[in-house]
């Protein structure tokens, strides 16, 4: 017999669904803003909107396979525009999608505090995975900027609180 460790007080955790247009349009919109709007508004580069969308969909669906596939698709598209090797963000966001959906089953990720901490942690993990792939597989030489990574993670966590609250309205309850 197996026991599942859960930090939620609820009896059952809602598994949310999203319509197909939302599932496609929201990631594309995030990507569009990240790539094209950041030309005008440079501060957007500190955020990682595709990562936030990946986390949101993963924890809301609470199913690892759709979560990791969503992460893989969004990350690959992001790589296309980032000009880097295609697969760097893809692999990193695949891992995040898997971890986020697995985490969503176990803890309550609907309150702002846990959302902030969860996003902050996932941003750090995403950066670590990205750097491991970049240095280990591609031979990149990008140094690690701890301060920038930390500031970026906190900023993404704060944005996630606001963004996820707005995106909750897109959920379809089963």
């Amino acid at each position: 017999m197996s026991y599942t460790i859960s930090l939620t007080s609820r009896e059952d955790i809602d598994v949310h669904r999203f319509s197909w247009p939302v599932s496609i349009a929201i990631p594309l919109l995030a990507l569009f803003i990240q790539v094209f709007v950041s030309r005008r508004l440079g501060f957007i580069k500190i955020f990682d909107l595709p990562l936030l969308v990946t986390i949101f969909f993963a924890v809301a669906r609470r199913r690892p396979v759709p979560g990791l596939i969503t992460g893989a698709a969004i990350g690959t598209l992001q790589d296309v525009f980032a000009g880097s090797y295609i697969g760097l963000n893809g692999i990193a966001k695949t891992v995040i999608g898997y971890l986020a959906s697995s985490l969503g089953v176990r803890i309550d990720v609907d309150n702002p505090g846990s959302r902030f901490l969860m996003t902050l942690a996932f941003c750090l993990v995403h950066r670590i995975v990205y750097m491991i792939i970049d240095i280990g597989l591609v031979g990149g030489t990008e140094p690690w900027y701890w301060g920038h990574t930390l500031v970026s993670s906190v900023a993404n966590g704060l944005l996630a609180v606001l963004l996820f609250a707005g995106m909750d309205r897109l959920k379809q309850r089963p």
Partner: protein
Amino acid sequence: MGRRGSAPSAFPGVGIDMENFFTRYKNPMVLMAVILIQVVALATQVKRPDSRTPGSSGTPLIRSWTMALFTPFERTLVATGHFFRNTWHNYIDLHDVRKQNRELQDELARLRLEQVRLRAGADESQRLRALLDFKERFVGQTLAAEVIGTSGTDLSRIIQIDKGSRAGVKQDMAVITPDGIVGKVKDVSSLSSLVLMINDRESGAGVILQNSRLHGILRGVGQGELQVSDIMSDERVDTGEAVVTSGGDGVYPKGLPAGTVTKVAGDSEGGPFLFVKIKPAANLERLEEVLIVTKVAEEAPVAAGDSAPRRAAEILAERLPSVSKTPDNTAGNKTPANGTAGPAPVANSGPTATMNKPAAAAATPKSKPELKTGDASTPARKPKAPAKPSPTPSADDAAAGDNSETPQPAEKKSQQPPSPEPEKPPR
């Protein structure tokens, strides 16, 4: 479940265990499979160094497709924004235009005067370079493009422009602004391209420090900063010194502004090289429009007076198909091609002599070889313009060793239309 009961396994218990295994570890296995696919794809890209070499079409297909899919939307968005902005600026927000117009007129007048002065200096510089037979690379042709996107991350310094292979853009073409260099084309799709900026860590450009004439390599060092590497620590580099491209990297034409030295320090790790920090000449953070260098001309610059005699000789060769170029006759032929021109010194005596005669026009020197060799009477000089063999000596050859010292009259001669039937040289 029913299937499990109805299909007996050859190895009792194994089939059930395997099915349980796959069911239980389905998620991690899918994760591993997806990561494996991406790692293989990544390895495929890394293994192809030819995709980074100039001229090769190394853009991954998925990147090309996706960029082609997204670019029209972005172009539409940018065009819409321009429409509203231009409408506002060109039709509504027109206050102070008259004042600006007056200021611009004054500026134009001042620049015209400056242009005259610079042109004189440029002519002199060209003549001197021709003397030294320098070969120089310079911007031959450019294509204007608009910046429509960025990489969206601080990890790479890449911009997306709205011109692609359809407009003639190719990999490794230099991208510049009037202020200085920007980067080079990294990936090309049909409608857009990705440009790797000079402050990216993967970027590099050959540069010269303008005053000290030290060569170095301009590199991005992360966070958008620029550094010139490979300068020995015993060299002297001053803050504020301009940095220009050396042309040695095969991407950027020579002499384009790259930046200014803002900080000079010794290597923090005690290395033999200086740390020379550079402020880029172009504003890389706020790029709106850029120029793609689609053609880099490489040729030896010629002095201003050289082109006219050569044109005259070519005109003559075209209009005198019967005139031959026999070196034998040329060597000893000191008779002028045109009887009215007289001997060479006479022909050189004034710009007005026989200016309306084509043979006299052909009697102008090829001053470029003269500048190279310094020997005006070299008999073995070959004429450039082809002509049919003929017993009569070539007017071009006849004059080849004669009056090369005075290109200026020849320049005037070449502007005269040659008569269709030139006079034969006197025997």
